[in-house]
């Protein structure tokens, strides 16, 4: 059934990495990306929680796309997404309490992360399960890599550490602004500029 599509599942996956990167190109879900990238560990943790929700909700939305009446598709999608968010929230509280504490309210807020909702509405509700799964994986990797990279850059300049380990010596005065909210905007701006530059080549 997926065979007649022109786009291969592999292409569905890779498009999320660069060409249609959710943060840098589609520019959705910036709230979580900006707030949870204070250090590399938080970024990676958010990426993992996001991956679970993104993939599961894309698959389920795709599975039920034919029996979901058009009029109530949004409430149905939100119910599906929030269920998975709550599951990962509980799981993190039970198995990774310290990570759960540092991500705080932003895990529950994945519910309103526009990427998850956007992919459910724009992709999973119109495409088969395999394609939706691939799309979910690609978007998750695209999101996870960018948010972890942002976290690493902010942590490196803002605290002189990487994943909590000291990399720069005591001689380095941490540039606090990178850890503060404005730093998130600076870093994301530079990343977008670099991405555009590479794409124009």
């Amino acid at each position, binding site marked *: 059934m997926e065979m007649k599509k022109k786009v291969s599942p592999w292409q569905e996956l890779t498009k999320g990495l660069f060409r249609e990167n959710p943060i840098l190109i589609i520019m959705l879900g910036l709230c979580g990306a900006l707030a949870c990238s204070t250090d590399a560990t938080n970024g990676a943790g958010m990426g993992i929680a996001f991956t679970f929700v993104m993939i599961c909700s894309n698959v389920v939305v795709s599975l039920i796309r034919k029996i*979901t009446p058009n009029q*109530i598709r949004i409430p149905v999608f939100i*119910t*599906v997404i929030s*269920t998975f968010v709550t599951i990962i929230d509980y799981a993190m509280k039970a198995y990774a309490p310290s990570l759960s504490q540092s991500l705080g309210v932003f895990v529950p807020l994945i519910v309103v992360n526009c990427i998850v909702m956007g992919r459910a509405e724009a992709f999973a509700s119109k495409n088969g399960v395999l394609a939706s799964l691939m799309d979910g994986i690609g978007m998750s990797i695209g999101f996870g890599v960018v948010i972890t990279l942002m976290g690493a850059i902010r942590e490196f300049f803002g605290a002189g550490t990487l994943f909590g380990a000291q990399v720069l010596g005591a001689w380095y005065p941490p540039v*606090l602004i990178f*850890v503060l909210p404005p730093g998130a905007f600076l870093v994301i701006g530079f990343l977008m500029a670099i991405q555009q530059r590479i794409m124009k080549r």
Partner: protein
Amino acid sequence: MKGTLKLAIILFIVCGLAAGALGFVNAATKDRIAEYARIAKLEALKKVFPEADEFKETDSGKAWDAVKGGSSIGSVHLVATQGYSGPIEAVFGMRADGTLTGVRVLLQTETAGLGAKIVGDKFLGQFAGRLRSEVALTKDDAANGRIDAIAAATISSRAVTKAIRAAADAAGGGN
């Protein structure tokens, strides 16, 4: 009308399934979550009062008697206050003579890199060994205060210091 009913029923079924799944996850994780909360609290008590080997709750979730070898040697208190950008919760231990044994911040939402340093040892380490009358910022009480505020985070530092001082004075003991 019939169409509307059908939509309602479908949405009802979806929500029912979601609720069922969540109930299952909740049942599977709730004991572990509660256990972590209990261990985290006990560890915090142990850290602020290392000499004690047992803690007896005297005020539910707020105050504990620090017991060593069957007799009380001091107390541990939980204080809650308002910081620069949200609530702060801390526990501190105090010997019967009014000397602090240690402080630990359990919950805070202060600015990363500035106020959030109130959880660090550089700031909290100043409390251990101080008499409760010395628990004040040096810039607020030059004569008695022995606690240096964190640079550029006076409000956060002051909030913690004042909350501990108030609770320590209320608990009494010593001087």
